[in-house]
C-alpha cells in the first residue's frame, strides 16, 4: 500500500476509471487518452491501473473497518456502561464478529447482511435487557410500597391496641388481612 507516486495519468483518473469499469480495454483507453492529448504506453497504463485498483481496494477496506467500528460503538452505547458479565460477553462477541466481517476482504452483500443482522440482534437484545431492568425496578418499587403501607398500618394498629379504641375481633380481622399483603 505504498503511497502512489504522481503520474501524468492522474488528471485523467476519473475518466480512465469510468472507461475500465465500463469494460474498455487498455488499447481502447490508450487511444481515447491519445485523442485527449495524453500519449502513454500500454505497459505504463497497465501499471497505473493496477496501482489504482489496489488503492481503491484499500480505501474500500478502510471504509468497511470504519463502518464495522461504528456498529461496534452503537452496540456498546446501547448496552451502557459497566454491563453485566454475560452482556459484556455478547458485546465482545459482536465486536469480534463485526470487525472480522469488516476485514475479511470481502464486500459481498451476503456477508455485509450477516454483519448488519448481528448488530440488529445485539441491539434488540440490549432493548430487551433495558425492558427487563425497567420491569424489575417497577416490581421492586411495588414491593417497597406494599411494605411501607404494611408498616404504617401495623403502627396504627399498635396505637389502637394500646388506646383500647378497637375490638379484639376487628383487630384480628385486620391482622389477618395484613398477612395477605
Amino acid at each position, binding site marked *: *500500500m505504498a503511497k502512489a507516486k504522481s503520474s501524468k495519468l492522474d488528471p485523467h483518473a476519473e475518466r480512465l476509471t469510468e472507461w475500465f469499469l465500463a469494460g474498455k480495454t487498455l488499447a481502447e483507453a490508450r487511444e481515447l487518452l491519445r485523442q485527449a492529448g495524453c500519449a502513454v504506453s500500454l505497459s505504463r497504463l497497465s501499471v497505473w491501473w493496477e496501482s489504482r485498483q489496489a488503492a481503491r481496494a484499500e480505501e474500500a477496506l478502510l471504509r468497511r*473497518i470504519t463502518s464495522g467500528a461504528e456498529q461496534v460503538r452503537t452496540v456498546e452505547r446501547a448496552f451502557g456502561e459497566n454491563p453485566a458479565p454475560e452482556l459484556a460477553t455478547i458485546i465482545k462477541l459482536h465486536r469480534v464478529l463485526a*470487525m472480522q466481517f469488516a*476485514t*475479511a*476482504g470481502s464486500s459481498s452483500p451476503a456477508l455485509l447482511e450477516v454483519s448488519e443482522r448481528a448488530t440488529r440482534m445485539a441491539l434488540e437484545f440490549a432493548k430487551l435487557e433495558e425492558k427487563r431492568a425497567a420491569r424489575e425496578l417497577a416490581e421492586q418499587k411495588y414491593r417497597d410500597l406494599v411494605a411501607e403501607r404494611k408498616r404504617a398500618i401495623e403502627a396504627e394498629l399498635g396505637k389502637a391496641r394500646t388506646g383500647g379504641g378497637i375490638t379484639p375481633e376487628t383487630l384480628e380481622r385486620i391482622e389477618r388481612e395484613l398477612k395477605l399483603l
Partner: protein
Amino acid sequence: MNEVNVIKRFILRALMAAYPTPLPGEALDAAVRTGVNPRPLMSDVELAKRDLEARGMIVGTRDPVDDSVSWALTPAGVIQAKPL
C-alpha cells in the same frame, strides 16, 4: 520502503479507520493480509506491530478471560496516522 514499513503504515491507517474503537487482533491481522500487497508473512506483521508498540504508537490490551489481544492507537499514534 521495505515490507515491514509498508505493513506499519497500513496498521496505522487501519487503526485510524476504527479509532477510537480497538481492533481485535484477528481482525487487524486479517486486514493487513487483505490490504497489503503482496500478502505479508505473519512474522513480518508481528514484527511491525511490536515495532509500533515499542515506539508508543499502538497499544495492545489483553483480555484477562480469554487472553485475546485488541489493538488501538495511542495519542502519538493518532498524530502519526492522521496524515497517512
